[in-house]
C-alpha cells in the first residue's frame, strides 16, 4: 500500500489531500504507480503529463523506482511569487 499526496489544483481534482493506493509492489516505477492511479482516479488523466513527482524533499523521475516507505507526492504546475508565470 502506498500513500499518494496531492497539492494545488490536484486536491480539487482528486477530491482530497491524499489517497491510499492498494496493491503497489516493491520495484515499481513512478510510471507504473501513475498508471494504477489513473485507473482509480480517471479525473487525474488530463493533469498527468504536466505534473512532477516527489518523495521526501526531492523530485523523482518517472523511470525511478518508488520507495514504499514514504508517500508519493504529486505536484501540478507551480505559480510562486505574484502574477502569472510570464509576468510576476
Amino acid at each position: 500500500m502506498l500513500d499518494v499526496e496531492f497539492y494545488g489544483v490536484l486536491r480539487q481534482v482528486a477530491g482530497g489531500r491524499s489517497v491510499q493506493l492498494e496493491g503497489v509492489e516493491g520495484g515499481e516505477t513512478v510510471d507504473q504507480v501513475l498508471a494504477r492511479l489513473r485507473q482509480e482516479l480517471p479525473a487525474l488523466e488530463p493533469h498527468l503529463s504536466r505534473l512532477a513527482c516527489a518523495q521526501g524533499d526531492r523530485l523523482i523521475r518517472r523511470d525511478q523506482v518508488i520507495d514504499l516507505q514514504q508517500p508519493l507526492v504529486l505536484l501540478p504546475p507551480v505559480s510562486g511569487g505574484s502574477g502569472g508565470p510570464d509576468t510576476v
Partner: protein
Amino acid sequence: MSHMTEQPLDLDALIRETENETCGAMVVFSGIVRNHHDGRGVTGMDYSAYGPMADRVLEELEAETIERFGVQECRIMHRTGRLEVGESSVLVVVRSHHRGDAFEAARYAIDTLKVRLPVWKEDFYTDGSAAYQDGVALQARDTGEREP
C-alpha cells in the same frame, strides 16, 4: 534560516541579516498580490506549498545564485497562507560589490524560483469565486533529482 513562513514577510529583517560592509549595492525584489488577474478583480490569494521540498529549493537557490553571479549575499523568503492585496508573497535580497551583478542575480533568483519552487496559488475574485492559477511545470535543478 527558514525560507518559508506563514507570517508577513519582514524586509527589514532580511536587510539586517544580509549586512555586509564590502558591498556597495543591494537589490531587493518583492512580489506583491495585485488587485487583478487576467482581467478579473482579485481580493486576495491563498498560497500553499509542499514544505519539505520548498525550503530545500530556496536554500539551494540562494547558494547557487551567490556562486553563479559572484555576489556576496542572497536571501529568499516566500510566504504561504491567505494574503490580501498589497501584501508581499516573496522577497529576494541580494548584495554585491557591483550593481550589475546584484541586478542580474536578483533577476535570476526570482525567475528560477518561479519554475522550481513547489508553491501554488488560489485566487479569490471580487465576484466571490476562486480558482487555482495555472503555472509552469515544475523543473528540477540539474543535480536536484534523487539518484536512481
